[in-house]
């Protein structure tokens, strides 16, 4: 019996097993089964797999009446947000008319739009972290695989982000710095804050100063040491205390701990180095540590931690286990 390749009997056996077989097909299968003990054994193995797999059925989801409609309304709002206004290009127009339009466009391209529609510039990072200064003096650290769109000239400071970035915003009370990401607007006067977006969540953490976070549900102000996380459907504006050091991890791997619980540090470390770090007991993970690591290798960090905290670190499979 060939185990790897398709045989016509497999289709029939599975149909028989799933009670999809016609009476004629049943007949064929039963004859085949009785032809040899090997055949029956083969079938019983398929049957066992089929019977066992029912135990893996995921638990049923909580369903409610009309939730498709609700979910659709949520999606519709997102679809209709004019994120990128479509340019209307009047192709069939006569040349003279085209020139009449093109000239002002060229003018504004070089000298800036009078109103909101300024020419935009894009800053992208691929596999490495990018640090840059925006035209207004704001320092931005763009995490890998992130894109920031900003106006070429900062008549006003509206930027858009995909991915993750840390901003140290240049103070300018007359022109608030505004960032849009995933339908959330963050307004800033002068502050340092981090924004992380992906297809599902938007997370804003503030290091210093205050920012105002707004979405379709309203607005909230968050200050230093606070953060907010919004899901694509869960859009409740609710702030929580932020582990301040977290966003430093993608800046050249700097971890500043000041009486920081060990558990928070290891969480940042595992995000930065991609290695799961597990602390054996709860008390140890609450142990405060005060230390600064700059661009250290993970094994060096672990060796410093184990020596100062008098703990041990062992490799277990892919992860690292810390214990007393």
């Amino acid at each position: 019996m060939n185990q790897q390749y398709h045989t016509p009997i497999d289709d029939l056996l599975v149909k028989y097993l799933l009670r999809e077989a016609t009476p004629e097909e049943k007949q064929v299968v039963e004859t085949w089964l009785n032809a040899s003990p090997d055949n029956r054994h083969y079938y019983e193995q398929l049957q066992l797999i089929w019977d066992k797999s029912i135990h893996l059925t995921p638990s049923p989801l909580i369903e409610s009446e009309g939730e498709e409609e609700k979910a659709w309304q949520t999606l519709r709002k997102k679809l209709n947000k004019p994120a990128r206004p479509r340019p209307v290009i009047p192709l069939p127009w006569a040349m003279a008319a085209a020139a009449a339009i093109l000239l002002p466009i060229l003018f504004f391209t070089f000298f800036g739009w009078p109103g909101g529609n300024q020419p935009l510039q894009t800053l992208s990072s691929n596999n490495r972290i990018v640090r840059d200064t925006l035209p207004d003096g704001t320092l931005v650290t763009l995490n890998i695989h992130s894109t920031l769109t900003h106006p070429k000239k900062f008549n006003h400071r509206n930027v858009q982000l995909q991915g993750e970035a840390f901003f140290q915003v240049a103070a300018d009370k007359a022109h608030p710095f505004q960032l849009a990401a995933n339908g959330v607007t963050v307004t800033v006067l002068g502050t340092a804050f981090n924004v992380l977006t992906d297809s599902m969540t938007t997370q804003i953490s503030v290091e210093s100063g205050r920012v105002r976070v707004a979405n379709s549900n309203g607005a909230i102000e968050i200050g230093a040491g606070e953060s907010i996380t919004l899901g694509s459907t869960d859009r409740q504006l609710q702030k929580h205390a932020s582990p301040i050091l977290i966003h430093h991890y993608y800046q050249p791997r700097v971890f500043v701990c000041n009486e920081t619980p060990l558990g928070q540090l290891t969480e940042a470390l595992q995000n930065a180095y991609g290695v799961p770090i597990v602390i054996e007991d709860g008390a140890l993970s609450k142990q405060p540590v005060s230390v600064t690591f700059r661009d250290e290798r993970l094994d060096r960090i672990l060796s410093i931690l184990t020596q100062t905290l008098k703990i041990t670190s062992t490799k277990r499979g892919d992860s690292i286990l810390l214990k007393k």
Partner: protein
Amino acid sequence: MITNAIYKKAITQPLTMEWDDAETIRLLKSRDEEVFGQLFKAHFKPLRQYAFTFVQEQQVAEDIVQTIFFKLWERIEVLNFSDSVPAYLYRAVYNESLNALKHNKVRRLYQSWLHRTMNHQTDSAHRKLHQDELEKRLHKAIAGLPQQCRTIFQMSRFEGLRYQEIGTRLGISPKTVENQMSKALRILRARLIEFLPGIALFLTSLISHSNH
């Protein structure tokens, strides 16, 4: 060609009526929001269920469905549906779910480890009772099936759908469902062969057969 009104009715009930994929694609590409909304509503629950088998969290599964439809609408004009629209949707959910898992992998590893340690005592007994080695391997093997194969197998096993229903839902022929189902079981058997009862049990079953 069917009129839009009848057609729109048809796609809201994809399980019971035949539907015309070329026509859906034409309407979608013309950015008919109503058709798009009906497509979304018709597939929302099954797709969420499908995503859930990967991510194990209802909210995350729901976000995944929202995300793939959002992306679909963004790129609708340039998309090339090589097979049917539903097959495209399931493939998109599959890819998005794997992405979400990759993204959360580290956090998840840690959390599941925590969970296991915290519930160590009760859990290990519970696990022994309910999930033996074969089941664990089986779980992995199902997760490793090719996309279409896995989708069809899960619909058949977890949702109890007939070949015909799966075919209609995915916009493919029952013959394809049949091939994919036997492919799934063949792959699972090959991957689990060491854990399946060998000749010993087979002999006892022979004896019990001859006794009857």
